[in-house]
């Protein structure tokens, strides 16, 4: 569904991604893990057309994403939930969610999705009218994921969804991802939380200083020495 080939991205001459290749098949859940500053977010941003790609390309469902505007990419069904959430802070929870469904034209469909999200995150239902900016960190994360679901994406890219969440919440979010995945959604997950991420996904990539160090079925990775040492502190 999504294929990334030899992607190179640099900021002000400094290479951040140095030829990254990656593949996500339909219905799969794929995780990208790696330490801080490895370039994980940059990878997703590059796919979304938000970072200047110097070479390499990304193809989504047969369409080359090079040169496409971000909004076009979203309309293709590729939705990105950024690390810093990017909520519309002064707007209410519900307005944020509705904006998530901006590219959906059928009001009934929007309503349906809204109910689905509220069911997924009852806390959001309680706070429908609260301004997004005044919610706690975890609540904001739920809203961000919920908003990402509103347009009915074909591929959902989540950038560190567990960031700043309470343990209980973290498992809830991962549970949600698991459920979404079971419902057939394709997911690309970027996580710091290596074990959970790998347990959740089919396939994993280890990104380090801009290169893929290792890849393979998640269960294999979980057992690999390199991962156990570098990320699981074992």
């Amino acid at each position, binding site marked *: 569904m999504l294929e990334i080939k030899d992607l190179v991205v640099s900021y002000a001459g400094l290479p951040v991604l140095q030829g990254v290749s990656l593949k996500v098949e339909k219905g799969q859940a794929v995780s990208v893990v790696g330490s801080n500053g490895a370039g994980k977010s940059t990878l997703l941003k590059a796919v*979304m057309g*938000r970072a200047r790609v110097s070479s390499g390309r990304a193809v989504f469902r047969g369409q080359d994403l090079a040169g496409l*505007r*971000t*909004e076009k990419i*979203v*309309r293709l069904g590729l*939705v*990105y939930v*950024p690390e810093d959430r*990017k*909520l*519309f*802070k*002064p*707007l209410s929870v519900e307005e944020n969610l*509705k*904006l*998530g469904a*901006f*590219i959906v034209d059928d009001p009934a469909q929007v309503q349906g999705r809204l109910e689905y999200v509220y069911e997924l995150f009852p806390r959001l239902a309680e706070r429908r009218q609260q301004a997004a900016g005044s919610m706690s960190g975890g609540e904001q994360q739920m809203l961000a994921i919920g*908003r990402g679901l509103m*347009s009915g994406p074909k591929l959902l890219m989540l950038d560190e969804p567990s960031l700043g969440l309470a343990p209980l919440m973290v498992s809830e979010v991962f549970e949600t991802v698991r459920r979404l995945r079971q419902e057939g959604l394709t997911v690309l997950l970027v996580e710091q939380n290596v074990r959970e991420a790998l347990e959740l996904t089919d396939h994993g990539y280890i990104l380090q200083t801009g290169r893929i160090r290792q890849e393979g079925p998640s269960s294999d990775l979980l057992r690999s020495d390199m991962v156990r040492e570098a990320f699981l502190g074992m």
Partner: protein
Amino acid sequence: MEALFLAMFKALVAGLLMGLVFALVALGLTIIFGVMDVVNFAHGEFLMVGMYATLLTAPLLGVDPVLTLPFSALVGAGLGVLCYHGLIRHLLRGPTIAQLFGTFGLMLFLRNLALMIMGSEPMIVHQGILVGKSFVVGPGIVLGATKLAAAALSLGAFWGAWWLIDRTKTGKALTATSLDKEAAMYMGISTERVNALAWALGGASVAVAGGLLVNFWPVDPNVGLLFTMIAFATVALGGFGSIKGALVAGVLIGMIVQAPPVWDAMLRLVGSDAAEGFTIHSLKYTFVYLIYFLIMVVRPQGLFGWKQ
């Protein structure tokens, strides 16, 4: 006493009319401000362009100046889009001050281009259904046709803007873009197009205002100055991005500007000695800025603002 009440009533009516005119001029600025957070120093120049557009096309087409308003709107929208793509887009890469000096350059450019082409003489529409008409509606209460039309247009335009932003999908896109451009992109909103649209709308609305005003106000290349500061104050007082705020603030400023005759009437009531020498006409705009400042200090986000 009666004279005082009459003066007050007259001022109220005149203030309301003038206030709606101010609001109309400020509407385009609010839209641009609201969506893009850009201070457009050249706003008054857009007004001037609209005025010239009507002034020049009416005799050319041989129609009443009022009928050329759609053309003015077109010119304003075109100018807005041109400015956005040619200049503003690039300014947005930098800090806020870049907008200030970029649009200041635009202001100098447009103003003096007009000077080269049109000369500095003030010009005005001499024929048309609005020209020179006014209606007496009470003892000494006269409503000028142009102002009346502008006030009506103002109400209509504000309703339209409110409807667009509050009730339509385009409006949602405008709001989202104004809050967070990047986030709006992730929602699938074409922010470039939304921004250009905001400039087109802003430009069109102020150009239409210009086309209407030239029935009463003379236009010259410097005419923008008269209205720009008032428009700025109107928009800030109402709260950036608040359509309702601009309307209320415009009317408020219109009222403030009409205070001097009431003051005079009051002095006359108290006795002519006091009336001697102390007129506040020369300070009427001073009061606008002063009251603006005082209100802002108490409500730093403007009357209806929520953005900061």
